[in-house]
């Protein structure tokens, strides 16, 4: 595993996401209320491009006929069969114990601390690293 710089912080606004590629894997990077999370772009159910799905909240209910939406923007709905995944953990809502999408560690680092992490063909191809900016790194 190694850290890859995949985006600048201000590229992904809260509620938005960006599809990136690192070490041959497609990864969706999500901004959930200012925190960043990264999920493999593959649904564990049937391999759909999970990160193309809609970001949603959690539909909850205390009793039939009553509906609440909580955790707005914290879940991802698979674009195919609609399975819901917690963006923070990758766990499926309906079967949290057995079903997860692969989640990657994420950190935010400012440009002047990147050091070695700024190397690598990916970074060089997408953007130069400025010491004043903050960057999102994913451990792949």
């Amino acid at each position, binding site marked *: *595993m190694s850290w890859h710089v995949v985006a600048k912080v201000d590229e992904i606004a809260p509620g938005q996401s960006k599809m990136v590629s690192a070490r041959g894997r497609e990864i969706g990077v999500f901004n959930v209320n200012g925190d960043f*999370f990264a999920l493999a772009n*593959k649904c*564990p*159910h*049937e*391999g*759909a*491009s999970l990160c*193309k*799905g*809609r970001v949603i909240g959690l539909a909850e209910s205390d009793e039939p006929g009553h509906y609440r939406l909580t955790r707005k923007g914290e879940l991802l709905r698979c*674009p*195919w*069969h*609609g399975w819901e995944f917690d963006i*923070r*953990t*990758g766990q*499926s809502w309906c*079967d949290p114990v*057995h*079903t*997860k*999408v*692969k*989640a*990657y*560690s*994420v950190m935010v680092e400012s440009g002047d601390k990147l050091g070695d992490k700024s190397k690598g063909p990916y970074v060089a191809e997408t953007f130069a690293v400025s010491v004043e900016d903050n960057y999102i790194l994913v*451990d792949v």
Partner: protein
Amino acid sequence: MSMDVLEPRTRPVRERQSKLSVVDCDIHPAAKSALELKPYMPQQWWEHLTTFGSGVRQNFSETLAYPRMQAEVSRVDAWPPSGGPPGSDLDFMRAQHLDPNNVERGILIPLRMNAGSQRNLAFGAALCRAINEWQIETWCRKEERLRGSIQVSADDVKFSVAEIERCAADPTYVQVLIPPRNLEPLGRERYWPIFEAAVAANRPIAMHVGGVSGSPAGAGTGTISYYVEEHQSLVQAMQAVLVSLVVEGVFERFPTLKIVMVEAGFAWLPALSWRLDTQWKRFKAEVPQLKRLPSEYIREHFWFTTQPIEEPERPEDLDRIIDWIGEDRIMFSTDYPHWDFDDPNYVFKTRMSETRRRKIFSENAKTLFNLRDA
């Protein structure tokens, strides 16, 4: 944030065998707009369509009675970048589905416009004819992997017979398409001329789940509330049609007739066969037209597409169910571009023999639809 290791029970099983070519028995083409059909319709009926729409026996003129979970009942990622609804762009269909999924042949099943369920029979006939021609001109002529279905309206027997006869000469049409829900259960004698025509044309009859009969979707229990119920009610409708076809003696009268049940699932078939066999012994005197066990007719005359794939709690039960039905009766389908699409690379959560995989992915369909020469 933790680094989670992927250990799900439902991890997609990626087959290590060579990628098999696929006959996809259920693809849904869409028109970018109704204008695509205009060249194939008499002006009178084009005007009828734009004036009254193509609603059927239900509450809304342009909307299905039970709203779906995703727009156009489709995969969120299946909207073509060029515009138009999912399934309306051939290039995109090639790029997203036909090419990467190794689709050697794809069978089109048009669903739009409720063409097979119209109350105004002459209008319904015009719609069916238009859709049948549109399939060939817009899709099959441009993409040689695609085949079409002769869409008919069962409640208009005269038209259905004529349309089958009209289309029969073109081998691009590989089956006759009838909605499963009609005014009466499909095994009833009033529909038999259509079976006769299908047999004469040497085409199986396919039924794709859906249709609007006017009876509530709740299988005799009344009007159901939710889409989640309506989605599964499609299965009970197919069960009732199967029972009707068998019990009415359709297969005594038409011993070469073949029926394809599309998108109905199949895990329910063994239990229904056993139930039919058991109860037939009790009710035998009522149905003298049956000379053999119902399960024998089922075994000889029915095929089932795979999508939406059954997901038993123990994945190996899928193999068992296929054993009980017969592996030569199961045919792969994706339902592209709909939301409950099955990806051929991930659809089976259990290892199956190479023979079984080949049969399901392509051989059974090639045999049934005579696709080897075409």
